[in-house]
């Protein structure tokens, strides 16, 4: 029997958030955390609210804090996160809670929008496509795979304290994804918008983002590359 402690908050009826305990029968199976939430919703309390969609680690909807570590509930097996028989599930930290495990990601998306995450190249587009060499294309590996689940940014203390000014690991990974793209010509403009004391330099390299990324990406390394580009540009 798995003991699940679930963060509950309905702003329409609750004065404050609280933790609700559930005993869930897993029949000894190594379920995913999302399966446990589905069991709770189906068999214990239908009002439990969370986001989910693809249930296979592709859509990035069910980013949650499980036993203190952010991750995607659909691809986190109980054997990986549960110590003893206790599972504590909370919403992603640092963002306003809309209800139960659903957070308002507006601040996260605002930072993503800030880095202009799209290809910029004013030269006339060729008839078919802008070509890259295999080496140029390889520069984007480890950057383009981000699914914007927000596990990294919401595990970053710098993003907790300054979500309106620090772009955060997810946004900066995408910033570097376009800085590293051989087809993009807005490098100077992109860098000039990042050279302030907050946008990039609030990163102190503690690598919480690397520790939690469900896709195994390394935002800290990308931020290091941005720093190097800023340094090369200024010296």
């Amino acid at each position, binding site marked *: 029997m798995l003991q699940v402690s679930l963060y509950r908050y309905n702003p329409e009826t609750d004065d404050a958030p609280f933790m609700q305990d559930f005993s869930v029968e897993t029949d000894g199976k190594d379920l995913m955390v999302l399966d446990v939430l589905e069991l709770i919703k189906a068999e214990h309390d239908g009002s439990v609210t969370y986001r989910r969609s693809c249930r296979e680690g592709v859509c990035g909807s069910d980013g949650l804090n499980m036993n203190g570590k952010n991750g995607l509930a659909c691809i986190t097996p109980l054997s990986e996160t549960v110590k003893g028989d206790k599972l504590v599930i909370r919403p992603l930290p640092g963002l306003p809670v809309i209800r139960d495990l659903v957070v308002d990601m507006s601040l996260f998306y605002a930072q993503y929008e800030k880095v202009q995450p799209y290809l910029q190249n004013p030269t006339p587009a060729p008839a078919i496509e802008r070509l890259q060499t295999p080496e140029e294309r390889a520069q984007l590996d480890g950057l383009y795979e981000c699914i914007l689940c927000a596990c990294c940014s919401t595990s970053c203390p710098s993003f907790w304290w*300054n979500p309106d000014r620090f772009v955060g690991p997810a946004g900066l990974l995408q910033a570097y994804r376009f800085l590293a793209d051989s087809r993009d010509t807005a490098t100077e403009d992109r860098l*000039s918008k*990042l050279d302030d004391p907050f946008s990039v330099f609030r990163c102190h390299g503690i690598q919480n983002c690397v520790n939690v990324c469900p896709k195994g990406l390394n935002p800290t390394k990308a931020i290091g590359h941005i*720093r190097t580009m800023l340094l090369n540009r200024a010296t």
Partner: protein
Amino acid sequence: MVTSVTSFSRTGLSDWLVQRVTSLVLLSYFLFIAYQLLGSVDYTSWRALFDQTWMKVFTLMASLSLAAHAWIGLWSVFTDYLTERMLGPKGNAIRLLCQLGASLSLVGYVIWIIVIVWS
């Protein structure tokens, strides 16, 4: 771009670079002091060491580095925790007060060191 008039150099890159360069100056200074302390130290030898111009310059460099390094670090801490987001409407006033206190203290320490070493 986010602007800030209270950061050390106004740009993130300069602050970052200054903090790293000053840390190297401080590291070399404190390693040197530690090396001196490991040998036999008495008043005469200590006084003789600090009477030399290069040691006075080295100490001045270390104290200026300490002030710059500490300001950038404290500025980061203040802008993390002493904000309206964390403390409510009085957050900005409290932060500015702390920044003022920290900057005056650092300038005071540097002047104090100069007076001691160069007088």
